[in-house]
């Protein structure tokens, strides 16, 4: 997981890229992909504990 400093730098760069290339569509696409990635990681992390309940 990147540090908050790197996360901030990444989004700053992403917005600068979208503005320079007039490609604003890439911001929600990347945001959704990152959220999906986060969800997968989170589910993988908590699933052993869920299944241990049954």
């Amino acid at each position: 997981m990147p540090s908050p400093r790197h996360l901030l730098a990444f989004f700053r760069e992403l917005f600068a890229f979208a503005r320079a290339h007039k490609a604003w569509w890439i911001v929600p696409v990347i945001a959704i992909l990152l959220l999906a990635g986060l969800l997968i990681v989170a589910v993988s992390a908590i699933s052993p504990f869920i299944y241990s309940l049954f």
Partner: protein
Amino acid sequence: MRLLGISAFYHDSAAVLLEDGRIVAAAQEERFSRVKHDASFPRHAAAWCLSQASGPLDAVVYYEKPLLKFERILHTIAAVAPRGFGAFAAAVPDWVHHKLWLPAAIDEELSRLGQRGVPVRFSGHHEAHAASAFFASPFEHAAILTLDGVGEWTTTALARGHGRELEFLRELHFPHSLGLLYSAFTHYCGFRVNSGEYKLMGLAPYGAPRFAWLIREHLLDLRDDGSFALNLDCFGFLAGQTMTNPHFERLFGAPARKPDAALTQFHCDLARSIQDVTEDIVLRLARTLHTLTGEDNLCLAGGVALNCVANARLLREGPFRNIWVQPAAGDAGGALGAALAYHFAQDGAVRTTDGRDLMQGAFLGPSYSDEEIEAAIRESGLVAERLEPAALLDRVASRLTSGAVVGFCQGRAEFGPRALGARSILADARSPEMQRRLNLKIKFRESFRPFAPIVLAERTRDWFEFDGASPYMLFTAPVAVSRCLPVKNSGEWSARLAEARSAIPAVTHVDFSARLQTVDAETNPALHALLSTFERRTGCPVLVNTSFNVRGEPPVCHPREATAGFLATDMDVLAFGPFYLEKEAQPPALRRAQRSREFAPD
């Protein structure tokens, strides 16, 4: 200003240290990790480069713009949806987890190497190629042509360089790519993409260009100015993870060759056809570039610039008087180009030219002290003699004359894909059996593949139809007519292999060409001295030079890898620094134990 250039995460990752515009160190990761075409972050190469630095870094420059590349991938996926789901599923997780976080990853890697908080900068992929071609060249001003598979969007760039300025004039964009077209045929003929392209080039002279019209008619819309559009119905790289698709196979009437299937005349003809089309495109682009710039000098880079047959034709038939090709023309050279582009974009950077290039003969990699070499030999249990330089050269020349195959490792290792005499295998080019012996017993590779000659620079004209210098083995040239022999040139393509074609048959390809390296005393003194000694003994200033590696492995770098390679093959002699090793003098148990080794496919 002290800069570290980095290329990584596609193929041939590398690191380069630049200090005030001077290349201090350059190395590919594969030479340390021993993984051929290693694409991982070049932590060993970077660590070695930093060990050569005289102070802390001012910046790290990466050779691509990751967001722009990711935009291209997303665009492509959207354009072919829903067909490209497989490609999407394969590519996106890697981007989400790793490649989008490149600045963080580089920052972390450099922190481990003791360089904290160094700013990370990015150059465009073709900007890096163009910078590696022009800023490293001996020219004050020149036209620049970069050609490869793809970087971010650009696949071909036509540019002009003047002093410390780069000006991009025209570009071709993905998916219309000469590199990808050539790679599609590499894949179709059963060779590995990004690795087997030079095999396809070597196969071409055995064939006839009978499919060239089919390629021009159905695969390409080629215009007079050299720009072109691929017929995307026939390629698989947009929607899938293969280069070609069933349409492509139907067009040529055969399925793609499996890697272990036999090569036939059909594959030779295909190789020759795509080679002809490639040369045609390169020539058209060069003429356009000449018209746009009016320059006499041309600089080349990008993976396609490693096609030495096309380079030679460009030199022979093209509009440019002088051509300089970046020896690390592929992605490894992108690390150098990225650092050079950043350096010369800074206020106050000064570029001067003195008629020599910046590459120092491409001897920019690691070297090892006599003590380190001796320790590696001792650890491997081998027996070596330590000789004075003149005695070593005399002994090696004597053994070459008697038909021995010699591993020759001297000084700093090469940067780029070619062995230029620092990590080389040398042999007598006059021997008719040498090509076959080297291919089957030393390199363990296909018997059709040709070997390259090295020649004393001052004696080039006596042996080859070539004016000028080719220090980086990036041009082919015909063997001088006076040295050629009459041949029958009939029968199966494989039967023509055995026929001696010149006084130096081991390096004469079936079309009487040779991939030439000219050796001068200033940049390559050890090899020049050896060739001179060999010429005094035999009257021939030519030897076979091939990279010191075995199949599936990168060229050796450290002495321990050289001793392992020496034992694993039928090599007769190893000369590493001042140490001389004879195979026959080694303990028999050691020789036998090492012979049963298996080799990875290349």
